[in-house]
């Protein structure tokens, strides 16, 4: 097609192939899932599952990255719920054998999953309240509350 200036118009930008999308998003999502779960093994499982869920919808998505982020966040939240159910039946962990992290990381693990997610999305990904609300599937006011309460919880754990 020729424009009024007689120049050829550039073809519309094609969305990246799913493989390219996967390669670009895999590691960021792996890191996000790790921060949300604290488990590398779970993060890898959950992110792979999230990509499997996203793949069939990928061509029709306006913002596949945001959709994927929401899918991963939800999957991590579900993982926490599943884990809580299983927790009651799990043998006590072996004392003194856990890997060491700094006290903020340890404190983060004690937070409610949605508050933890709000803090990670806000202070690791630097998402806006609107984007966090989209990722968590809640209102912006809820994001404010989750973030505020998450920080308060974190402070309580660090400075009891």
């Amino acid at each position, binding site marked *: 097609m020729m424009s009024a200036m007689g120049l050829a118009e550039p073809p519309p930008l094609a969305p990246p192939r799913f*493989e390219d999308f*996967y*390669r*670009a998003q*895999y*590691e960021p999502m*792996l*890191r*996000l899932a*790790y*921060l949300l779960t604290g*488990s*590398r*093994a*779970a*993060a890898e*499982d959950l992110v*792979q599952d999230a*990509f*499997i*869920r996203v*793949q*069939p919808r990928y061509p029709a998505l306006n913002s596949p990255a945001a959709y994927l982020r929401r899918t991963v966040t939800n999957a991590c939240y579900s*993982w926490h719920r*599943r884990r809580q*159910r*299983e927790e*009651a*039946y*799990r*043998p006590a*962990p*072996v004392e003194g*054998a*856990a*890997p*060491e*992290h*700094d*006290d*903020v*990381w340890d404190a*983060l693990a004690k937070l409610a999953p949605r508050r933890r997610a709000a*803090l*990670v999305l806000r*202070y*690791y990904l630097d998402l806006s309240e609107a984007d966090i609300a989209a990722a968590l599937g809640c209102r912006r006011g809820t994001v404010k509350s989750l973030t505020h309460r998450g*920080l308060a919880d*974190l*402070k309580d754990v*660090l*400075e009891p």
Partner: protein
Amino acid sequence: MNDDELIDRLRRTLRDEATQVHAPPDGWERFQRRAAGASPARSRWVVAAPVAALGLAAAIVAAVLVTSNGTSTTKGRTELATPAARPATTAAASASATTAAAAAGNAGAAAAPAPTAPTFAPSASAANVPPGFTPRSVTFVSPTEGFVLGASAVAHTVDAGRTWTALPALPHAKVSELRFANAHDGWAWGPELWATHDGGHSWHQLTVPGGEGGVYALEAAAGAVHMVVFDGQAFRVATAPVASDAFSVSLGAAAIPVGAGPVPTVQLVLQGRTGWAIEVDRTVVGGLRLVDGAWQPWTPPCLTGNGPAVIAASSATEVVAACDEGVWGPAPQTGERLWVSHDGGATFTGAGPIPGGHALAVASPSAGTIVAAVQAAGPAALEATFDAGATWSQVSTAAGVDAADLGFTTATQGVVVFRTPAGDGGTLQITRDGGRTWREVAFS
């Protein structure tokens, strides 16, 4: 702690934790296998929904099974409290995993990778660390994962030093130091330079960029590896993205002139995209500072102290220096003194004497906490202060007259190698309480 401080700590923790996670290079292939193996995603989830209650019941039944045999089989996702040694083959590099941004600031001569001739890639199977393993250099890439260079092997841990496996040694390489930027990208140097991008399973030799006389110092942070080299006239810094061997050498004023002494040494300290290089040749000769990814001239501490100095940093702004003052100048020799900076090394103020002899190395996990490896006539020792130099106490001693790689991975976990100059002895010590107590690490 106010909210700003809490948020700052939270951001740092999240960033530090996240950067330990890297995508395996075969992620796409794994995805394809997983996608092919799974029933179509839609049907799997659609089927799951109507039978949610059944699924919950199944989960509970599975969980009950956990208690019966002590091992969770639930979807294979339950993690053991003790991290299992990761199979070597799962450690994997990803060139895209690392940010090359840190290297971008240096307009430099591309001294191109000289990934060169010799390569070494023996069997990658995990093995026990050989008896008599003598540590020479240590590097931790996370609180749990670390590597130790020895004459007979490279020891590797994924559980904070509780257990070790042996990676292949570099039998023909002339190297004495080891650094890894992450689980995959590492360098062994001194005087030769070797690199690995698969977690130490294979190594290849690089030509030292710009250089005569080998590598004087090497550190990696924020996705970039920096090494100090000598170009025949001055010391310069060569930088590359960690997953690459393409080093660029800093040009122009970013150089340290040669000193008057016989044996120049250079120390490199990095904190993210900030860093410091200090050259000592009997006395402090000069320095460079890395500001937002670019090296520039820097007036180091103790420049007029007539003696050597070692430095450390706990953040981009908190820098400390241990200066052995008056060693080469007119009397009196005033001894080892601590200097601290709260502005990234722009200005330093004195913070009193450091006991125990000459400072071999210094480290600071947080502002006000400083550990110095010192040595007088006898064995080397660690002296520590937890009140910014007001008081000091000896926290460890060890046979050996040199201390290498004293540093902290987190605010609480740190390491040091005490070694003999001849290389026939050495011990690795680790602290898990911010430097208050140290214990020797066993490799068997």
